[in-house]
């Protein structure tokens, strides 16, 4: 066992974890944050996507110890004061969620994109979610939701 200090969604956690456990495992099984999902466990599906210092990574391929010293953001950290994040709102409003399995990872990839490029074009959006597979939606509504979220965020920034 190894003691691991994690900063997840701006909260400090200290956990005793097995050194070979992935960040995904520790988030789900030890911190009870089940938003990140295990799909493939091999870096292909993106269901396990979290942000590490603001950038999307596959938490299934990351040892939990490697997240020490970094800021981890999971889908649970996006809502503020009981209000959904504008990207979450947009996914709901645009009907970009069906079974929902891909959604947390998809939204986090979208967040990383919009933090870097506030008004992305379709090509940039498709590239940003190229590591997130969705079996249900056909992606069109997801792309629309991300574009709408970009506009909503720009409006709040402008206000």
């Amino acid at each position, binding site marked *: 066992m*190894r003691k691991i200090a994690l900063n997840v969604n701006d909260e400090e956690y200290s956990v005793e974890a*097995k*050194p*070979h*456990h*992935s960040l995904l*495992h520790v988030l789900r099984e030890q911190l009870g944050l089940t938003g990140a999902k295990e799909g493939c*466990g*091999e*870096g*292909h599906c*993106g269901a396990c*996507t979290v942000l*590490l210092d603001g*950038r*999307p*990574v*596959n938490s*299934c*391929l*990351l*040892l939990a*110890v*490697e997240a020490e010293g970094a800021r981890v953001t999971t889908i649970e950290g996006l809502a503020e004061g009981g209000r959904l994040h504008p990207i979450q709102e947009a996914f709901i409003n645009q009907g970009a969620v069906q079974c929902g399995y891909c959604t947390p990872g998809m939204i986090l*990839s979208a967040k*990383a994109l919009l933090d870097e490029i506030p008004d992305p074009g379709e090509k940039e959006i498709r*590239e*940003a979610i*190229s*590591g997130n597979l969705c079996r249900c939606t056909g992606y069109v509504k997801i792309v629309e939701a991300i574009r709408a979220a970009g506009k909503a965020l720009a409006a709040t920034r402008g206000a």
Partner: protein
Amino acid sequence: MPKFELLEPADTREALSLLSELGERARLLAGGTDLMVNLRRGRIRPEYVVRILSKEGLQGFSTGSTGLRIGAMATIREVAVHPAIKERFPALARAALSMATPQVRNRATIGGNLCNASPAADTAPPLLVHDAEVDISGAAGSRTMPLRDFFQGPGAAALQAGEILTAIRVPDPGTGVGAAFIKLGVRKAQEIAIVSVAVLLRRGAAGQVDEARIALGAVAPTPLRVPAAEDELRSRPFSLELAARAAGLAASAVEPIDDVRATAEYRRAMAGVLVERALVDAWEKAAENCEG
């Protein structure tokens, strides 16, 4: 994930002494995007995984008079967006950007891509046409070798047990040089190459080819250069016929295999097509980079 013991040496020096002591029983962890998958699939079963705490000397980029040094643990994303790489080594930037997914590129390292020694490693062809060299450290000392000699077979890099790849050195290409990278995959995102091609051409004052280098990925046991095709181009005035001839020589030099992604025959045919296309592309870029 199968069990292993995690060792966390403070720096490269400590890691080297640990690795030399443990030999085949230990594996170095870089970005983990190959290692974690291989561990999970049980393809490798090391007793120890070694994670270096301070990556000083293994990360970052430095440009000197002779060229660019890339720390082995620079991430693929960093390589893709680095201004000096985009400007001086665009084929490498492009290869990095064409790799995997945003998530993987944020973790995967350029050193890991080379040490994993996949025939399809995307950063290999552009580095090969730039005559890159690799710095390798072991407990006994350091050495530098051409990247060309580094690939020995599928999954086999020229590393002794306990050695670490510390940096990649890419000489400055100089003026009048154009380079291109083209990758063919089944789909656009996160696809291992069916064929990948990098080309570097230097354009002489009289419109002749002063220097020609061609490298291919996924069409032989290792990424490789094709000297016969390069010789065909050197010192000749560039023309579409010449490019087609060289491409034909490149296609006959490769030794592709059949697999789930493509047949050997298709790979060979596409190797020719892509080399021809990359030659034309590189020649145009070389013209743009001519002084005056």
